[in-house]
């Protein structure tokens, strides 16, 4: 099989913004001195007049974006997750979320990775629909629900499992909220066993969202793979993913154990 092309999701974000900039004249991009890293620099190069650097001042950036939106424009405020979801959380909560309730076309939090990820979706047939999961593989023994970088790992894990005689379904949940309840309940009915994988804490992310759906709609056994409520540390990204079990090998091992224990 030919080697899959790889691309960082942040790269796709920058390219998408640059592309959407043609379509939506109302689209503006803000960054907080990280245009090279978040890849909004791609947009900046194409639309220098519609790009505003806010300097190393994320709280203000979120507020400015809220003001722009209130004046009728579509701002994309980009920075690292730590700053967007951490430092400027209160600004997002109080200045942006409130306003979005009125404008209806609400605020959106998007998460991108630095690491190059394999491009495996077929661009001709793949359709992105907010809040709708995508079933990538059918299977009756276990359903692997993955998001972001882990989707590809889940697909690879399912192949290995198939060779062992375990049929694993694979579902890509790209939107954590609103979560696609139907696809999760359907998988639970079929397999009675779900396994979530995310490059994120096991608390408050995909795993928690799926647990929420199962507990309320169709109780089924759930195994969560993610960062297990522990502090992170530095290292090459690929090695860290392995260390935290965020790889196909670990998915295979956990899925195998869970199916055996069924």
């Amino acid at each position: 099989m030919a080697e899959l092309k790889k691309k960082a999701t942040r790269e796709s974000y920058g390219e998408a913004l640059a592309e959407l900039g043609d379509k939506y004249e109302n689209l503006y991009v803000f960054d907080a001195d990280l245009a090279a890293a978040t890849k909004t620099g791609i947009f900046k190069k194409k639309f220098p007049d519609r790009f505003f650097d806010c300097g190393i001042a994320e709280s203000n950036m979120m507020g400015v974006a809220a003001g722009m939106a209130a004046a009728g424009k579509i701002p994309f405020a980009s920075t690292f997750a730590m700053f967007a979801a951490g430092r400027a959380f209160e600004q997002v909560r109080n200045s942006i979320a409130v306003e979005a309730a009125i404008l209806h076309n609400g605020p959106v939090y998007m998460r991108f990775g630095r690491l190059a990820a394999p491009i495996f979706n077929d661009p001709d047939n793949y359709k992105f629909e907010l809040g709708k999961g995508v079933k990538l593989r059918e299977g009756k023994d276990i359903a692997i629900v993955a998001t972001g970088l882990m989707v590809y790992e889940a697909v690879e894990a399912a192949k290995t499992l198939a060779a062992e005689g375990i049929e694993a379904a694979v579902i890509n949940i790209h939107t954590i909220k609103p979560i696609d309840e139907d696809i999760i309940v359907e998988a639970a009915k079929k397999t009675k066993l779900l396994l979530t994988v995310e490059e994120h804490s096991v608390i408050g992310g995909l795993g928690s969202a799926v647990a929420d759906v199962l507990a309320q709609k169709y109780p089924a056994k759930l195994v969560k793979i993610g960062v297990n409520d522990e502090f992170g540390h530095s290292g090459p990204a690929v090695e860290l993913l392995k260390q935290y079990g965020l790889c196909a090998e670990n998915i295979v091992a956990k899925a195998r154990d869970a199916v055996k224990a069924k």
Partner: protein
Amino acid sequence: MDETLKKQLQITACKVRLGILEGVFNAKSGHPGGSLSIADLLTYLYFAKMNVYPDKPDEPQRDRLVLSKGHTAPALYATLAEKGFFPKEELKSLRHVGAMLQGHPCITIPGVDMSSGSLGQGISAACGMALSGKISSDTYKVYTILGDGEIEEGQVWEAAMFAAHYKLDNLVAVVDNNGLQIDGKIDDVMSPYPITDKFASFGWHVITADAHDFDSLEKAFDEAETVCGQPVVIVMKSVKGKGVSFMENNVSWHGSAPNQEQYEQAVKEINETLKSLEG
């Protein structure tokens, strides 16, 4: 300022003050002190300065106001009601369950341009609106009102840097310098002084004014109009609780409502002022 206009503004300001007292009294909570200190400013802005349209509150070219010191919403509501954005009757149900008037400014209320109240955030939103106006060559102006305690928030200075960097000369910030914050005198709690020098060093055009003198306010805002290429701040010396003798310069009225007796006394005082103006 034209004497007739001045008298009219003074009368309107009294009515705004009565509206503030009515709202806070009926809510049994809220912030009368800092509301009364900006009553004259809001009266000047909405009745002599800003292009606003009570029958078309969302008119795209309207001037905008972000009350960054959002806890003084009663002053904004009383002014908007006086201007005709909604019935004055609404002031009676301020902060009540199911009422339109929320404890802090909410963008769903006619005439309110931005939700605010978490200190330090309103000025950033005002920057966003001003930047939007610049980009689209809109003619509107953006005004934002900050408390002198509020500028202890770091975000204010991020916004100050931003506004000067992007030369937002369609933005006018007003600092309501009444010298008091909840815990006491601003000099004692955490001095933001010298306020004028700080803004000047951030690249702003700085003007000082007397918050309770319409001639001074007019002069300040007229000067603001002439400034090109930089944002303007008007540091306005004010009296917290202005207009009600027992509330003036008394920090305990920062965030507490008057009881029946106090309310009646306050209304009586303002009505006396009103009578002497109208008489």
